[in-house]
């Protein structure tokens, strides 16, 4: 019985070994074989993700990062925050209880690149937006151990002193549009002004941000100071929008017990 079962495999290996024995005399045959064998899996797993519609849910209320938030995201990447923090709540009960509704694909639809992360030295941040006040975020980044004595998170006090570079923002938004984020010409042209505007509420530039990105946009002082636009402003603006780009997860996953 066992033999019978194994027989086709044995036959296969026989043929395979013979084919190989011939191929290994020709470096080009070997090359072609390797490329072929190594292409199948990736093709079958990746290509359909672009074509099957159900892969990404549709969320009509999905909004884009403002220039300030995008700048904050770039700082998040620059500092390697993603090496200690995930942004992907798995479909496991304890994660949902700890961090909130599990993450949907649509939430990172415009994330070039995604920051799902692979290690939680610190907690997941997918829904950390508005969990704490701006002031808490700033003080935590300046000195994590002042707020959480057991923390092993590095301090980032220098962000408070670093002026935010905004000139390159139109170029960055344009590059993002090239790869598929639907920014408008208007948004791209005003990116540098809007970055500053979002951190000075009740001014004309701030109104421009609300007009271009929606009334829901967080327009606040972020780092607590009006006169300077810093990298801290950008990073906190980004942290505060995490989990807030769409309401779909909360709508489709009512809290337990309801």
């Amino acid at each position, binding site marked *: 019985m066992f033999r019978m079962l194994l027989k086709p495999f044995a036959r296969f290996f026989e043929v395979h*070994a013979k084919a190989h024995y011939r191929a290994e005399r020709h*470096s080009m045959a070997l090359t072609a074989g390797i490329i072929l064998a190594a292409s199948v899996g990736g093709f079958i*797993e990746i290509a359909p993700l672009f074509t099957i519609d159900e892969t990404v849910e549709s969320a009509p209320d999905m909004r884009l990062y403002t220039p300030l938030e995008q700048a904050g995201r770039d700082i998040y990447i*620059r500092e390697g925050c993603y090496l200690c923090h995930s942004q992907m709540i798995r479909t496991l009960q304890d994660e949902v209880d700890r961090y909130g509704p599990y993450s949907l694909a649509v939430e*990172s639809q415009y994330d070039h690149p995604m920051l799902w992360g692979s290690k939680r030295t610190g907690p997941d941040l997918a829904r950390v937006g508005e969990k704490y006040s701006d002031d808490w975020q700033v003080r935590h980044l300046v000195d994590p151990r002042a707020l959480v004595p057991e923390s092993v998170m590095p301090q980032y006090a220098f962000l408070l002193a670093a002026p935010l570079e905004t000139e390159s923002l139109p170029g960055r938004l344009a590059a993002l549009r090239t*790869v598929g984020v639907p920014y408008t010409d208007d948004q791209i042209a005003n990116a540098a002004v809007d970055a500053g505007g979002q951190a000075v509420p009740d001014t004309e530039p701030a109104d421009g941000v609300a007009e271009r990105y929606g009334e829901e946009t967080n327009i606040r002082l972020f780092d607590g100071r009006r006169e300077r636009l810093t990298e801290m402003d950008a990073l906190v603006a980004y942290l505060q929008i995490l989990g807030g780009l769409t309401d779909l997860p909360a709508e489709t996953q009512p809290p337990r017990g309801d």
Partner: protein
Amino acid sequence: MMTRLMATERQGALILSGLVALAGLILAAAGRGDPMGVHGWITLVFAGGVLLIALRALDAPEPTEDRLASYYDDPTKVGILLALFWAVVGMGMGVWVAAQLAWPELRFDAPWSSFGRLRPVHTSGVIFGFGGNALIATSFHVMQRTSRARLAGHLSPWFVLLGFNLFCLVAASGYLMGVTQSKEYAEPEWYADIWLVIVWVVYFVLYMRTLARRNEPHIYVANWYYLAFILVVAMLHIVNNLAVPASFGAAKSYSAFAGVQDAMTQWWYGHNAVAFFLTAGFLGMLYYFLPKRAERPIYSYRLSILSFWGIVFFYIWAGSHHLHYTALPQWVQTLGMTFSVMLLVPSWASAGNALMTLNGAWHKVRDDATLRFMMLAAVFYGLSTFEGSFMAVRAVNSLSHYTDWTVGHVHAGAMGWVALISFGSIYAVVPLLWRKEAMYSWKLVESHFWLALAGTVIYVFAMWNSGITQGLMWRTYTESGTLAYSFTETLVAMRPYYIARVIGGALFLAGAVIGAYNVYMTIRVAGHQAPQIDYPTGSEANEPAVPAAE
């Protein structure tokens, strides 16, 4: 070293390094005020250094030796020294970042010295700097010996080796300045990525041209693996790094992919970097140096064929096991899990093949620490591939993912397998390359072995403990149905293991430093001895021959 080259080759070196220096200058000019500009200067200085060396030897006399009667080992030698340099740097960085997690004050206050910026210096330093140089150097050695032919070209090996190290340098310095794409193990930005493609194409052509010169109809096993390493790494690198720069005057770029597609592409890359960089290439090393050192033929040729194609075909599917329970469609997760489990068959076929080869030579394993390095590497390869298949099972992954268990698993592979086989091969090849009778001190090889073993075991056990503890704490509920532990409480529980990890890592680093010292002293003072046969020849010589079809 330059005098070994013909006048035309020296002129070629001059022109090439001049071109690279020019590229550096353009990068420096275009990227003024951006880290890209700094990279331009680094490139300029690097290429300028090479240019000076070429210039000084420009009118040296033509070499008189019959070049086809010997192997060309200069690039191999430099590659091995570079590998050892990066080993110490990369592992040193590893110990530092590990220490930061136990004593956060070691972060100090500079922007460049935080965990997030140093960690990629560690990973790229050991994977690309140490591993990559070891692979390139040994591949030069192995392709010549198994083909019994000299390298096809005298400029291209240098271009590959130095070009690759320029890439490593740009990568590492970039992380310190915050230049990163955030894709793990593919962090360098677009211009570095393009440069690597050029280097890699030259590497492939060199390999093919050397194989074409071979004095032997069959291509030896080790070369299949090196070839798979070169080819598939190129494929992965190009696809995963597709990106649009925000400006041609700055480093920042945005990945062509987003969200779930990006995650899948990244882990298709990430897992196959493990497969084709950290496994296939090093299996090439194993398949050459282990039989050679043990003076035994490979146990089964049939098994090598089976495991080779199994690894090439199955591994590619496995990446999605990094994304269990995420927003990746479940069918892809399931495929990833299935193939990861099947992968155990070819992996163990390779590990078993290596260990069975040692049958009849176990007394050598006992007496010879160099061979013991290789034996232990094969054992760790077997263990960590088993662990990998196990962790790819969804239920297990729900516990292990995001925790230190993953970190422990990676290090069982990286320290136990990749580093041990590299050190074993280096100890085997250094006396031969420098024409010495033996390593300077076998006792130091012996101490390196025990330090490496102790370091790995301490590291891995510490991470198993912390990972499983943390995973369990996250999911523990109280009687009343609420989560039992806050995140902060898990941090407190991790601390002792993080300290243990620093100790394990430091032992391993100490071993590497001893190894580097031993190699240095071998070159400096060990007695001269010419090997009996180590030149291109039509006869079977004493290389591991390809067995006739079984």
